[in-house]
């Protein structure tokens, strides 16, 4: 089944927030923000700006009726700056005007004076000053302190990975409309409708039921609209609160890049130890995470880094610690992978470093140390149904990777200008929100008396086709044509208290809720059909829009049975709740069973460097991926391809650059480059692993959003090997992204 929005998408008919027809009298908001990274506001003069024709209001923190506080996990972030500013782009005032262009002109007229303080930009300075978002957090397994002396090989090093701009094509936006009795309806481009509702209520000092959040779809999000859609939504509601007029805020691309957080950069010191027979005995890592100026989602991202510190390997002795460093950068936030890719980059760097020094391919260390059933992850969960061995074998059967390795060697022997490299990246990714409390969802299913079906869930459609999957679930349970099923917008009045669409879990959680609701309806319909056909309800089933009894077709159609049920005064609506079974995690001991299941995979990457110019092409990425029993292979393949290329972008060209004053230099699409159609691998081959799937996944179809992002990490190590093939003086260093600059400097390093 195709993405249900395909027709509208290709015809430009899909409606995003900025496309909603505006009500007459709608006002437009622009944010005035800090131009310095750290300081005190000495003077803020909005008088000239206020006098500009067409300016309706300029709101500052004094206009906030409730709490000036938007922090979701830790309450440490104001909506509008009060006395101090802590990052460039921190909102200070909201300008409301009759048009966007007037609001922009007014912004130029606001006068501000600061007393500037020295900003902290890098994590080392933050750590030295003990400037943390939360106390350092550690996971431990075994006893690391005693094991080093047993190690035959010990390697230490530093691995760094950079930030990443989400670059969702649709910028942040919201459109808030006043309703009667002080209520507000808001259309927001958010992954977390309930977050917008909750924080909005807190800031306005009203109750949550006074705010209705409605989300039709997002033009991409990737984590960037999980928490950071909230400020703009709340600001538009703040303006509605005061002005009682509809207010729209759409960030310009420039403001979006300037004001919103990105993937967390990490700097990590690691130490890894091996036995004589190359078994990993010990792994220790200190991750310095650059969280920016406020917590945002950093505590949760910290956690996921710790959960993925050993990637696909069993290591009996582990101690990993994350220092979430508070700096004067825009608060960094969720981005596909959520701290896991940063951790996986570190352990894979450690392995690469070890393999290079031992003089064997990294692949061999990976194979020797792969986690197997009944091994313990460092957080106490016992590995079950591990698919890695099968994946490795499937990769060998399909791709013959010894042959690929040899081809790379042969190529390098016979070419001077061009050199190739190859790398392997296995992935083991835990699925569930690591905060157990968030792993639940609800769905509301209406069957209308004509047999058509309407479904509301807490899932937000952002291109991942979750709505399509919800329709598949309902049409599967009812055995009706998917055309009968409509997905409604995500709306807090229909489905309340939702978790954000995140953590790759949206289809599982909401799909299970839909399945449950549909099954409850099905039981009632079977009773109605049983009465009508004078048969036992247990003998009734539905197949291809018909009622069947004891596997035999009847003439009773779906529409007839629905009418019969309605006429018999049976409820055709159902609201269901699903919460993931089994999972738990005890933070006081940092142990538990946090994940419903793991997703496994392997990517083999080959690349060619032009050694004269330092440019490269990615020849191929060959993937074996554990989809479970995919309910929609085409859509899931699209998730793999998209995540892979985003990962490749993070590893090669996407480079976030700040100067030492905290000024973002890569502040526009002209100097922050994401992959285009020419920068993708020449060959992407995806082999689905044959497996039984997992009961905790929706219809056994495993989560697919984030795990494949990590396949993109492979390009880093493939490029390193290609550099080394040209220049044996090259010192392997682990500092992503591997830009053309780093490649060329590596090719000619002495």
């Amino acid at each position: 089944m195709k993405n249900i929005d395909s027709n509208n998408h290709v015809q430009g008919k899909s409606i995003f927030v900025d496309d909603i027809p505006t009500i007459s009298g709608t006002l437009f908001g622009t944010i005035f923000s800090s131009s310095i990274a750290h300081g005190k506001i000495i003077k803020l003069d909005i008088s000239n700006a206020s006098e500009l024709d067409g300016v309706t209001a300029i709101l500052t923190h004094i206009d906030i009726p409730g709490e000036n506080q938007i922090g979701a996990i830790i309450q440490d972030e104001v909506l509008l700056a009060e006395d101090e500013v802590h990052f460039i782009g921190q909102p200070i005032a909201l300008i409301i005007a009759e048009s966007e262009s007037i609001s922009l002109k007014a912004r130029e007229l606001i006068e501000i004076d600061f007393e500037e303080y020295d900003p902290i930009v890098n994590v080392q300075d933050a750590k030295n000053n003990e400037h943390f978002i939360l106390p350092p957090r550690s996971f431990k397994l075994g006893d690391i302190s005693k094991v080093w002396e047993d190690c035959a090989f010990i390697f230490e090093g530093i691995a760094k990975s950079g930030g990443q701009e989400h670059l969702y094509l649709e910028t942040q936006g919201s459109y808030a409309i006043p309703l009667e009795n002080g209520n507000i309806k808001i259309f927001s481009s958010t992954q977390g409708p309930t977050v917008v509702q909750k924080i909005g209520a807190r800031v306005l000092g009203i109750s949550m039921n006074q705010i209705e959040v409605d989300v039709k779809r997002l033009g991409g999000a990737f984590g960037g609209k999980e928490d950071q859609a909230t400020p703009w939504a709340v600001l538009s509601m703040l303006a509605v609160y005061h002005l009682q007029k509809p207010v729209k805020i759409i960030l310009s691309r420039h403001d979006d890049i300037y004001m919103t957080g990105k993937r967390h950069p990490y700097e990590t010191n690691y130490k890894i130890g091996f036995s004589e027979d190359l078994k990993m005995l010990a792994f220790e890592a200190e991750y310095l995470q650059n969280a920016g100026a406020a917590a945002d989602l950093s505590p949760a991202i910290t956690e996921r880094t710790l959960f993925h510190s050993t990637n696909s390997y069993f290591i009996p002795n582990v101690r990993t610690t994350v220092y979430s460093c508070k700096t004067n950068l825009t608060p960094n936030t969720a981005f596909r992978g959520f701290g896991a890719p940063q951790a996986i980059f570190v352990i894979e760097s450690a392995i690469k470093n070890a393999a290079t020094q031992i003089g064997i391919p990294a692949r061999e260390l990976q194979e020797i140390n792969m986690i197997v059933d009944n091994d313990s992850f460092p957080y106490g969960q016992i590995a079950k149904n591990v698919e890695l061995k099968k994946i490795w074998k499937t990769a060998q059967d399909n791709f013959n990777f010894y042959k690929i390795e040899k081809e790379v060697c042969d190529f390098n022997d016979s070419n001077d200008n061009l050199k190739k490299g190859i790398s392997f990246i296995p992935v083991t990714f835990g699925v569930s929100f690591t905060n157990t409390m968030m792993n639940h969802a609800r769905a509301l299913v209406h069957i209308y008396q004509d047999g058509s079906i309407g479904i509301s869930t807490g899932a937000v459609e952002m291109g991942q086709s979750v709505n399509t999957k919800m329709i598949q679930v309902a049409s599967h349970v009812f055995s009706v044509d998917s055309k009968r099923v409509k997905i409604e917008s995500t709306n807090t009045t229909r489905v309340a208290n939702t978790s954000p669409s995140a953590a790759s879990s949206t289809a599982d959680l909401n799909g299970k809720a839909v399945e449950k609701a549909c099954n409850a309806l099905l039981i009632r319909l079977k009773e109605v059909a049983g009465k009508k056909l004078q048969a036992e309800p247990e003998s009734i089933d539905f197949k291809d829009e018909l009622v069947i009894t004891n596997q035999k077709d009847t003439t009773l159609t779906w529409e007839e049975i629905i009418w019969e049920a309605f006429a018999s005064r049976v409820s055709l609506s159902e609201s269901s709740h699903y919460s993931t079974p089994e999972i738990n995690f005890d933070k006081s001991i940092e142990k538990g069973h946090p994940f419903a299941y793991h997703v496994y995979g392997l990517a083999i990457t080959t690349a060619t460097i032009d050694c004269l110019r330092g440019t490269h092409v990615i020849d191929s990425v060959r993937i074996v991926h554990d989809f479970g029993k995919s309910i929609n292979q085409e859509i899931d393949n699209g998730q793999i391809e998209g995540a892979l290329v985003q990962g490749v972008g993070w590893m090669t060209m996407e480079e976030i650059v700040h100067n030492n004053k905290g000024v973002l230099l890569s502040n526009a699409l002209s100097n922050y480059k994401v992959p285009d159609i020419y920068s993708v691998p020449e060959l992407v081959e995806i082999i689905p692993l044959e497996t039984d799937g997992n009961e905790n996944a929706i219809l056994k179809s495993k989560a697919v959003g984030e795990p494949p992002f990590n396949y993109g990490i492979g390009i880093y190590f493939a490029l390193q090997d290609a550099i080394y093939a040209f220049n044996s003086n090259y010192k392997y260093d682990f500092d992503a992204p591997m830009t053309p600059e780093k490649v060329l400097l590596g090719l000619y390093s002495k």
Partner: protein
Amino acid sequence: MIEFILNNEHVVTELPSGSILLNFIRKEKQLTGTKIGCREGDCGACTVLIGSIDQQGKLIYKSVNSCLTPIASAHQRHVVTIEGLNLKDKLTPIQEIFKKNNATQCGFCTPGFIISITGSAFNSDTSISSVMDSIGGNICRCTGYSSIQKSSSEIAQLLVNSGNNGSISKLTSAGILPEYFLNIQNRLLAIPNISSNSNNKYIVGGGTDLYVSQSAEFESKAIDLIESKCGNGITLNNGVCIIEAGASATDIMENNDLISLFTELKSYFKLISSKQIRNTGTLGGNLVNASPIADLAIFFLALNSKISISNNDNLRSIFLKDFFKGYKLIDLNEGEIIQSMAFNIPEENEYFNFEKVSKRTHLDIASVNSAIKISIRNNHISEIHISAGGVAPIPLYLKNTSSFLKGKELTSQNIRKGHCVLKEEISPISDVRGSDVYKKLLLKQLYFAHFIKLFPEKISIADIK
């Protein structure tokens, strides 16, 4: 007053001629299929087609970024948004191919892709690479492009199958364009010319850089287009090629005479911005903008080009290398405009090469770019001109290096000596496109790349390792 056809609607607007087409489309006309992605021509979400009648009297369409297009450019033209491509009851075959291949996920970038790729139906060549090139300026953050690449090759096949030669009637009968396109030419001919004696302060030569930084200011300004001041012709006569300042990068890249002179012209130009930008940006605009890494300036500096500058009836001619005076400082007085540029056509023993490296190979600003023209007689360098961008405040003509090499024998040793001269005449700075150390090394590499590519028997990568 600007008068044009927007999709199937005749439009007359009194908006200032400098105001932005994208705003008109979305705000005045509520055509929301055209998206705002970046407002700097770097994402393609706002792409529209602009149809105009060319000198042969044929209606042709080109894709442009409507965020960088002054509404003046729409006059007497046909502006096509996604709404103007949609058929009544079904998808166009191009839309169908995108759907079939799952080449849309969130859908925000999709209308721009559909528009750009439909524009490739008007390309002279409809090879897969040409169809791909039409969407080189469109960014998708969801799909990873595999599905879009697959769609591109199927669309290339579709265009071949529909006997495509850019003919409107063939494209409408194939359902690629709606029927109403058949009447557009007549309807355009009925729109009167804009007054030709307009004399506004601002003459926009494409605007693809100007509108990135100053679009808000131009919302209220009246402008003249470069095409009203100088032509876009390309002529080759008596060993001299003259390109008028209004020629777009596409005009240059697709000129058959130039392609026969520079066999790799298309691959060089594919490194320059995107199809949409090349369709809009002009030679005159690129030179006057004087960016230190201006691709066209670097290209033509190495051809030792001269430019003709006019002020009403006065005409003066200077070498391009003398035009750039300092960072964004040029030898152009108030009231003067560049009319055209001329260079000697390379002869048989003359060789040319252009190199560019950027963080992303396509649609990116160069970290360093460089071009060379070299004449060889009796194994000696009889004439040589080398240029380099990104290593000085201006697009740099490497004067000392060129004059050092002139007359020297073409040997690996002399080429290496030339590099010693080169490194003394550049002064790169560290910025977001690379450190000074990198830019120095990169220019060294590109300098040698010229020779390794042109004279592989004289020098190889082993000589510089």
